[in-house]
């Protein structure tokens, strides 16, 4: 059986979280398919990187270590991956839906004429029957994602082309070590043999990384605002509530698009996926594009003018009322009851 591959991303010398999350998912898919899980890591100064991947069940770690592979640029990575995949013929290849994966994935899939599905929220294995062609397929990768602004959920398959490729956002899958002593092996890629001068035409002149100041993902309490909050000023109230409760402010895409909140606070399919202990949704209607990123919160309080807002269907508490009225009361009664 051909393997499941995860194209890993390196973040400050370590394997990125999203890649480890996909290793965990990849391991469970590989178990179901009874095949190997293989990781691919490209970059520079990667000595010992395989040790980060074995505990997640990597049977093989392919490593291409070369100074020309750091920082990341599209073309040399594409050349190496296409070269490797033409030899190894993986049945499935997964990448994080980061700027890295969403830059690299389509380029690789176009070169291999494989299919690629972006921003999947679930990956499953299942059969398919093509009645028109009279063909049946076993063990296809179901690539499940919301589409059309979150109004539908589509299951996408690639019946005939390999690898079946998918990107998944950080936080969507759970990261879990399968065995701290899991033993795989390393395959060293001869980068020099593959790279051609035309792969190196795009040059990174400068890059400055700013540590993300916002840390929504690890916050156990999130106060999130939607378009219904109405203004940037009203968002300040949410900030106050979040500070009082010791949480962070999140936002729906509509609120970010409207300029009420910064992009790195966006929760949902095209933003961050969160699983806090408490999620307070303020003026969020609850389109699936948003709920896909927060529905696993342990407790959800929804504040909305519309008693029929879809968010109320997944909420534990649905407060029908004005955000501008309810939020200050939450602050007031929290303070009163904790004094």
């Amino acid at each position, binding site marked *: 059986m051909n393997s499941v591959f995860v194209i890993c991303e390196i973040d400050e010398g370590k394997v990125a979280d999203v890649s480890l999350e996909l290793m965990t998912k990849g391991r469970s898919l590989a178990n179901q398919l009874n095949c190997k899980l293989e990781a691919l890591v490209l970059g520079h100064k990667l000595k010992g990187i395989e040790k980060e991947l074995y505990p997640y069940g990597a049977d093989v770690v392919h490593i291409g270590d070369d100074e020309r592979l750091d920082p990341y640029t599209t073309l040399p990575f594409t050349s190496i991956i296409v070269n490797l995949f033409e030899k190894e013929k993986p049945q499935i290849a997964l990448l994080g839906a980061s*700027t890295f994966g969403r830059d690299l994935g*389509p380029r690789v*899939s*176009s070169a291999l004429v494989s299919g690629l599905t972006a921003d999947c929220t679930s990956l499953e294995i299942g059969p398919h029957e093509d009645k028109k062609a009279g063909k049946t397929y076993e063990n296809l990768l179901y690539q499940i994602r919301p*589409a059309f602004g979150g109004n539908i959920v589509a299951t996408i398959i690639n019946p005939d082309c390999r690898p079946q490729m998918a990107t998944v956002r950080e936080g969507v899958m759970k990261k879990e070590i399968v065995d701290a002593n899991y033993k795989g092996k390393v395959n060293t890629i001869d980068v020099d043999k593959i790279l051609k001068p035309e792969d190196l035409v795009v040059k990174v002149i400068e*890059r400055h990384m700013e540590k993300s100041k916002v840390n929504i993902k690890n916050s156990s309490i999130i106060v999130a605002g939607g378009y219904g909050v109405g203004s940037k000023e009203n968002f300040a109230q949410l900030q106050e509530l979040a500070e009082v409760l010791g949480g962070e402010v999140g936002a729906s895409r509509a609120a970010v698009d409207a300029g009420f909140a910064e992009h790195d606070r966006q929760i949902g399919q095209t933003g961050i996926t969160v699983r806090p202990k*408490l999620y307070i949704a303020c003026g969020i209607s609850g389109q699936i594009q948003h709920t896909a990123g927060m529905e696993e919160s342990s407790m959800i309080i929804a504040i909305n003018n519309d008693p029929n807002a879809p968010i109320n269907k997944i909420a534990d508490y649905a407060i029908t009322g004005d955000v501008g009225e309810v939020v200050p009361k*939450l602050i007031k009664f929290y303070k009163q009851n904790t004094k």
Partner: protein
Amino acid sequence: MGLKIVVLAKQVPDTRNVGKDAMKADGTVNRAALPAIFNPEDLNALEQALRLKDNYPGTEVTILTMGPGRAADVIREGLYRGADNGYLLTDRAFAGSDTLATSYAISCAIKKMEKCDLIIAGRQAIDGDTAQVGPQVAEKLGLPQVTYAEEVLSADKKKIVIKRRLERGVETVEMPLPGVITVNASAPDCRPRNTKLLMKFKHAKTITERQSESEDYIDLTADRPYLNIEEWSVNDIETDINWLGLSGSPTKVKKIENVVFQAKEAKRMTPADEEIDELMKELIANHTIG
């Protein structure tokens, strides 16, 4: 130093404004009820092209769109804002295309056009959010790509310097031309329509649109060739038909589910003081907060 720039633009249903009338009785999306708009990030892309035109006289900006006949609206919108001309790629043969088949058709059209220096597209379209067409067009044309662009810092006939927006910072990259750029929503907004251009291009139409006009319609394109929006069918570009539409799409839609939220009873509350007070006591008592 004029550049030849092609801007890839898509007409999309405005999925951000799905109102109640946009849902049919059976709960499916009534696409006809959604307004068709210029994909937002393609407008950011157009603005970057127009800025290059401002800075480098002799630059020509061409809009290329693929879609049904009414997608000519996107080209007109581009002309009103400063684009020079446009091409509509429209044919039943393209129906059912996934991102790869779309990219293939677009790359064939670009090959057929006058040689260009730069292709600029929005990062992604709001109806699919895939961000795949830009990089796949680049691959099909064998050109380098820079995605997540926020600003073109400088350009000459041979190379372009671009600022990219990444998750946690910015990156400045240099790419030789010709090449492909995809632009983020964090880039500057597109300039509004220009009144003079609106007057000039108000009657710009594709041949199909002109032919469906009433009898007393006067075709002005002989005197004013700029009023013709070039319309290409599959026969006007060189393609391998197997790579188009459904047959050229490796990905297939197996199943579409309309979103139905799981039934789970929420505790209904009003903003009355006693109720909020009670809620806070409850949350503190069960250690959710505090």
